[in-house]
């Protein structure tokens, strides 16, 4: 499984990338997309919604199952990837780049530090 070094992760198989602008970009991991299989539907939160870390804020559904997505961090949703809403299969083919889901303006930058490192996440997926 591909686990890029420069990202942070959650135990719910999501990744977080801190952008230079200070927002974080969120998506699901390679492990998550592989477990789900072909993704056919994504439901994302509205831009402007306030989310708290751990809240369920959307769904990713494959041909065979549905998985909730959780806010990895607290803040306000500032962008959603309309590309994956139109073509959910992008999440399967490119989960860390084109397949991102939302951007969140974070309230407390220290929350990022509490997330899993790539090494810790890689270990989690192997256990």
């Amino acid at each position, binding site marked *: 499984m591909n686990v890029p070094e420069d990202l942070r992760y959650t135990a719910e198989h999501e990744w977080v990338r801190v952008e230079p602008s200070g927002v974080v970009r969120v998506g699901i991991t390679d492990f998550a997309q592989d477990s789900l*299989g*072909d993704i*056919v*539907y994504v439901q994302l939160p509205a831009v402007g919604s306030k989310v708290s870390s751990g809240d369920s804020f959307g*769904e990713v*559904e494959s*041909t*065979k199952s*549905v998985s909730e997505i959780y806010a990895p961090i607290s803040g306000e949703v500032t962008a959603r990837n309309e590309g994956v809403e139109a073509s959910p299969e992008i999440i399967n083919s490119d989960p860390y780049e084109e397949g991102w889901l939302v951007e969140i303006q974070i309230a407390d930058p220290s929350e990022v530090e509490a997330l899993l490192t790539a090494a810790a996440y890689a270990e989690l997926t192997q256990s």
Partner: protein
Amino acid sequence: MTLLASPLHERHAALGAKFAAFGGWEMPLEYAGGGVLKEHSAVREAVGIFDVSHLGKARIAGAGAAAFVNSCLTNDLGRIKPGKAQYTLCCDEASGGVVDDIIAYLHDDDHVFLIPNAANTTEVVRRLVAAAPAELTITNEHRDYAVLAVQGPRSTELLAALGLPTDHEYMSFETADLDGVELTVCRTGYTGEHGYELVVPAGDAVAVWDRLFGTQVEARACGLGARDTLRTEMGYPLHGQDLSMDITPVQARAGWAVGWTKPEFWGKAVLSREKADGPRRTLWGLVANDRGIPRAHMQVLAADQTVGEITSGTFSPTRKVGIALALLDSAAGLGEGSQVEVDVRGRRSSMTVTKPPFVTPSVK
């Protein structure tokens, strides 16, 4: 409980299959580099090969075997000639509920071969043995044979490349020889496409599998995930979901597989009564009007009242929309074109009632 494995298990593992439990067997769900959508479209557009060795096999042999089977199972073997197969049901005598749906191969008056579902084979055999006269031999041959389904518009080209019979009629079967392996080639399948099912001695399964993938016709290995989306697009029932001990053939609109005028079959009295009175609920198709994807056990609502329940639901890869089979209460008066809502995890999804299939079949 330990899961049983197909004789092709190592071939699947080498292809990077993800496995799942089906009726007590560990079978491929999908393959690396494939996935449900690619495997589904391979069958609709070219050819896919499924290992369905988990399906049961049982043999009834002896004087009057066909007449005995005909007095138990619902469909009328009198409608077909030896060398043909038939979709039929094993119903419960008292309730009319469906113990299993089965393909029956009529060899001759004294020999019938059955393909029940994996999880129900033991029970079907038990019921047949309990009812059979002493001169008949009924054997559960579940693990003696592998079953390979070769399905799709290029399936004929593929089998022809191996010199296997291909020009027989839909639902008929022929015995053939492939490198000294005797196998049965039946013009059947559960995908809605032109195709074949090969019944192969378990010990020869690997050799036959390798030959099927060794022709110039490029075939894709397909898992049971794609088999489910393909059969749902056809409105074909899956036992345990759309047919069960609680769902009769009258409710499931499977009356076409019942020989109503036969002198007897298990459940005839109770099912004939239900047919005459009209079932309290009927199986319909639903097509989503929005992006909702219906799933089994979701509630169907009309005017805010629960009017039924989804029995099978998925995303249709061909139509790119949510589709479902649902048991709808007759009292609700719904029919073709009626608008209903489905409770998709707390959200209401709008759907239109329709008669399956959802995609035009091309089996013949």
